[in-house]
């Protein structure tokens, strides 16, 4: 069967939707696309001065590395990092404008995930990265996490208008988790990826934290100033970053430190209610784009 090849495909996140696995395992295995991961992509689209952005130069820089002209770019930072604030959408929109100026015909891939699940995962990422705020402060203070960040319909609509609805592919993380192979086969067909599944390992790369590891890491994180968005540190002791990493690497896998954190252990009923009130309207609009049945099936707030 003849598959239509899309020369430039850009995966923009969201964060916490298996982006690390896609970037480290799956995308590099695609034989008919040259893949560039977040470091290069961030350099071109995030760290470049908006006022002096040269789209021709950016295009040349990225396409130069592709032998057949097919290019796959991926960085979850393009939707802005969850733990670095929302900033009223200026960053996301600014980056979208840069991408559009560079590759107006590109196909955009956006993965989304139930907000309640993504929030819990993002908080654990915050702790792993050195964060010190408790869950409630992280969630509600607005200092780190901003709920607007996860109004998926808004960003998707912005990209739809900028590129066209046919160029923006929205995938559900839950579909991918439910049945990796069939999801990826469908995605490959749609995007024209050629991948040998025998070379792929489906083991997740990011592990959740165990209940008793959380306070240990929160304590250790108070003693180094690694930038993580916002945190509080008492004094910076060199080497404490390694201590935090060691706890995660060597102690977190041990079951004596309790169960892995789950949604229910972080989100109380009242939290769930507040999040439901906040996101249900946005998800209803999202349903027009991706299908209400699908969202209902995977437990999105509706």
């Amino acid at each position, binding site marked *: 069967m003849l598959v239509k090849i899309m020369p430039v495909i850009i995966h923009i996140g969201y964060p916490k939707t298996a982006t690390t696995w896609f970037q480290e395992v799956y995308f590099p295995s695609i034989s008919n696309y040259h893949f560039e991961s977040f470091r290069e992509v961030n350099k071109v689209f995030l760290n470049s001065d908006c*006022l002096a952005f040269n789209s021709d130069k950016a295009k040349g820089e990225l396409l130069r590395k592709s032998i057949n002209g097919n290019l796959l770019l991926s960085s979850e930072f393009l939707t802005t990092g969850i733990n670095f604030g929302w900033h009223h959408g200026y960053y996301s929109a600014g980056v979208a404008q840069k991408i559009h100026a560079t590759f107006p015909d590109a196909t955009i891939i956006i993965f989304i995930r139930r907000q309640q699940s993504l929030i819990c995962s993002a908080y654990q990422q915050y702790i792993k990265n050195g964060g010190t705020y408790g869950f409630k402060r992280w969630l509600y203070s607005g200092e780190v996490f901003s709920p607007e960040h996860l109004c998926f319909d808004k960003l998707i609509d912005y990209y739809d208008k900028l590129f066209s609805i046919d160029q923006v592919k929205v995938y559900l993380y839950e579909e991918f988790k439910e049945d990796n192979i069939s999801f990826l086969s469908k995605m490959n067909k749609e995007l024209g990826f050629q991948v040998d599944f025998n070379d792929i390992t489906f083991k997740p790369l990011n592990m959740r934290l165990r209940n008793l590891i959380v306070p240990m890491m929160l304590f250790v994180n108070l003693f180094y100033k690694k930038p993580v968005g*916002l945190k509080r540190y008492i004094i910076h002791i060199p080497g404490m970053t390694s201590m935090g990493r060691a706890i995660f690497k060597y102690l977190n896998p041990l079951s004596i430190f309790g169960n892995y954190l789950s949604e229910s252990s972080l989100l109380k009923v009242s939290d769930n209610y507040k999040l439901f009130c906040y996101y249900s309207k946005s998800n209803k609009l999202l349903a027009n784009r991706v299908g209400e049945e699908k969202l209902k099936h995977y437990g999105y707030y509706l």
Partner: protein
Amino acid sequence: MSMGKNILHLGFSKTGTHWFNDQVYKNNEGVYLLTRKEVFCNLAFMNTFEYSPADTYRLFQDQSLGKRLVICDDILLGSLDIGFGSGEYVCMMANRLKETFGDASVVIFIRNQHEALVSAYSHYIKSGGTYSARKFLGIFRSHRPPFIDYHLFSPDLFDYSKIIGLYDDLFGHENVHVYLYEDFSRSPESFIQSFCEDLNLTINQVLDFQPQNVRLSAWSAGIMQFFNHFTSRNTIFKHYIFSIPRLYEVLISATGKLDRAFPALRPLAFSGGVHSWIDERFRMGNRELARWVNMEKLREYGYPL
């Protein structure tokens, strides 16, 4: 007489923007000056994906009762409280203003970066900051990961030519009025007269030319910087060891009294090394300013060139 265009007075920061707000626009009968709250809520901090230029303009128009709209707020250029990031805020705000206000007159004041940055640093220390001048200016920052310190001040904000160029492209050269803060500071009365003629403004009251924000003395800055380590207020970009309640208020009051009691105290200043860095950092950009201002004047006022 024609009413004149709406006015967008954008700053830059530390160029007397608050003074213009309070003295020139606030009590002017012919204009409707938007309050800071209105600007924050309806313009600057609206979700980008929900912002509607037409709705916002209609809202402002309804409030103005047919008068000229004036916004005089350096938040439109990022102020000192929104970092430059990679210029997204500045760029998108310029486009937002164009979409909302069409062919308004844009007023931009610039100031010798040596002075403007000392003033910005003084403001940061007053806000509770603890970083050194070098850290504040990002002189040691070899690499900045995306999003980190987005709200921390960035000296890129003072790269005047790029930002003026952006507004020039959007609003047209004839609508962008660039003034030197030093001209205003040297001879305020005559400056205001010609400024009002340029923008078709009439001033009916006597103006108070006393500066509203006074820079800290070097002593006060040193005291505040040290004791800010013991208060969590006010800026989030600081390092405090623990927070003593009400210390911040005490510090503000004590340093204010100290500076008033000893007006001869040396004002806060940067070291020679920092000034050399400023010279190097802004020299090339300032040379592009010839399209808008007299370069001889920039030389006279000591701009990096």
